[in-house]
């Protein structure tokens, strides 16, 4: 039985997995309420909250799984990328728990967790496939050739997709977190009411393959400019106009993602696309991706909603795979804010 911890941002999560994919417990303690007054995640408050809840959540997970620590054979924890103070809570707790029981320990890359979450629910995902990670902190495209074999092809050059959703929601005073709110309001609006252009990407990028990169900062600025031009003090935007605005923003954001997905799949002749991360819960993205897949005979996979958001089940899965291959981390493993997938120590 693998025990796993995730604390990279504003969700504390504990999971217990009977490998390969029998999830005995997967608990998530969200901190959204704490960060709402600040309009975004406050790293110090996130770390404090992780510290408060990690032991009770761990205890609840054991109860839910109907096991004791004696039944645990290995421990995993997210070690990167993320907020350092937040990561350190889960990582330090997990390492000492493993040390105290002389259990094997493995640090897991959060992105690698997202790339593999799909395997907890599907055993037919073909390799190679395109792995798309879209969340509040990440927007990356990988060719996944097998477990622990990833090739980064493109990423956002500025804001992550989810970050753009949050910022647009904040601009319009719609609340936090912005993703689900924009999704809900967009469903009530006309996605073609306002025409926002797609960004023009130069060929050069830090990853060397500029044509697959994406950018959301121009779109975000275009929304802000539109609001400035149309939000007159004595005539504030109507609810219908805001619905149209966020629907148009969301439509364009999805178009930006789909453009890269389409290019990569075509160029590399990939049979399947796996989309994961918090933004994978977005209904417009799911529909666009599914429709596109049917049209182009490409299989599309989305983990269920509970596996799209940050969770420890995906960390348990990746941890179990590495431990089964005899890969472990040393006690001096540290948390890092960034880091490529597949590199563990």
């Amino acid at each position, binding site marked *: 039985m693998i025990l796993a911890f995730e604390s990279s941002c504003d969700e504390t999560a504990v999971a217990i997995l009977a490998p390969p994919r029998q999830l005995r417990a997967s608990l998530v303690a969200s901190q959204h309420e704490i960060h709402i007054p600040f309009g975004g995640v406050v790293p110090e408050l996130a770390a404090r909250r992780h*510290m408060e809840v990690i032991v009770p959540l761990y205890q609840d997970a054991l109860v839910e799984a109907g096991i004791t620590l004696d039944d645990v054979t290995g421990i995993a924890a997210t070690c990167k990328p993320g907020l350092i103070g937040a990561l350190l809570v889960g*990582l*330090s*707790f997990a390492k*000492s728990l493993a040390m105290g029981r002389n259990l094997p320990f493995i640090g897991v890359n959060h992105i690698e967790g997202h790339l593999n979450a799909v395997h907890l629910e599907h055993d037919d995902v073909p390799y190679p496939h395109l792995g798309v990670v879209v969340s509040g902190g990440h927007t990356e495209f990988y060719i996944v050739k097998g477990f622990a074999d990833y090739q980064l092809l493109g990423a956002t050059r500025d804001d992550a997709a989810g970050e753009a959703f949050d910022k647009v929601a904040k601009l319009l005073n719609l609340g936090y977190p912005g993703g689900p709110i924009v999704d809900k309001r967009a469903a009530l609006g006309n996605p073609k009411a306002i025409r926002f252009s797609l960004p023009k990407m130069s060929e050069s990028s830090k990853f060397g393959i500029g044509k697959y990169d994406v950018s959301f900062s121009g779109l975000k600025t275009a929304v802000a400019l539109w609001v400035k031009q149309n939000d007159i003090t004595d005539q504030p935007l109507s609810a219908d106009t805001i619905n149209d605005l966020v629907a148009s923003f969301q439509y364009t954001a999805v178009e930006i993602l789909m453009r890269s997905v389409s290019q990569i799949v075509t160029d590399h002749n990939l049979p399947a696309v796996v989309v994961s991360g918090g933004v994978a819960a977005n209904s417009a993205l799911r529909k666009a991706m599914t429709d596109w897949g049917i049209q182009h005979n490409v299989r599309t996979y989305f983990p269920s909603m509970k596996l799209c958001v940050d969770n420890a089940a995906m960390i348990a899965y990746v941890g179990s795979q590495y431990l089964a291959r005899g890969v472990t981390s040393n006690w*001096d493993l540290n948390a890092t804010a960034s880091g490529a997938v597949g590199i563990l120590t």
Partner: protein
Amino acid sequence: MILFFDTSTPNGILALGQQDRCITFSHWKAEHSHSQLLPPYIDTALQELPNGISELTHITVGIGPGSFTGLRVALATAKGLAIARNIPLVAIPSPTVFATLCQATTDYAACCLDAFRGEIYLGIYKMQSGIPVLQNDIASLTPKVAAMQIAALNGSITVTGTGYDRYRDQFPSSVIPGNTHYDKAAAVSILKFATQSIQNNKTHQPAELHPYYVRDAEAVEKQKR
């Protein structure tokens, strides 16, 4: 057998023993990497025990105030070990930890830890049988106010800590500088403090013990202003 550690400042410290017997102690400098250094130091220390980790009966941990991240590394590590071994925790305020560096025969000992943002955490102690006994409520103060409180004490005083090191020129010239290096005498003093706490039933279950931050997060302080 008691395992103690504190990572509230860049100076990480560890001791293993009980009562007035210190089996091993270590210290290290770590600006940002206690998480990297603490577990290997623990692992190495435990190798001194013939029966290893199974001999541990208590984990004693510096709970702060100090570096917010450092406190959480120590507390999370302590909780994990305590749960794994099913043993209780003993809390020790971090200024008390460093007050053990003041073993001189003065009337008082004071520990001033750098709290950043132009402040220090001040703990004032009387040493009783080699154990620091706290005389004030630990608070975050400007160096000037801390120096005034120290100057107002009626008796001789030894001062130590990262805050004293940083703001030494603001303290009365009459104070005696304490040791700057963690040594076996300080480790024994901490283990005696822990032993006394255990004898007085001042132990905690892992879910009960939290960092002693003293200050709110900066974002909350800004919001209050």
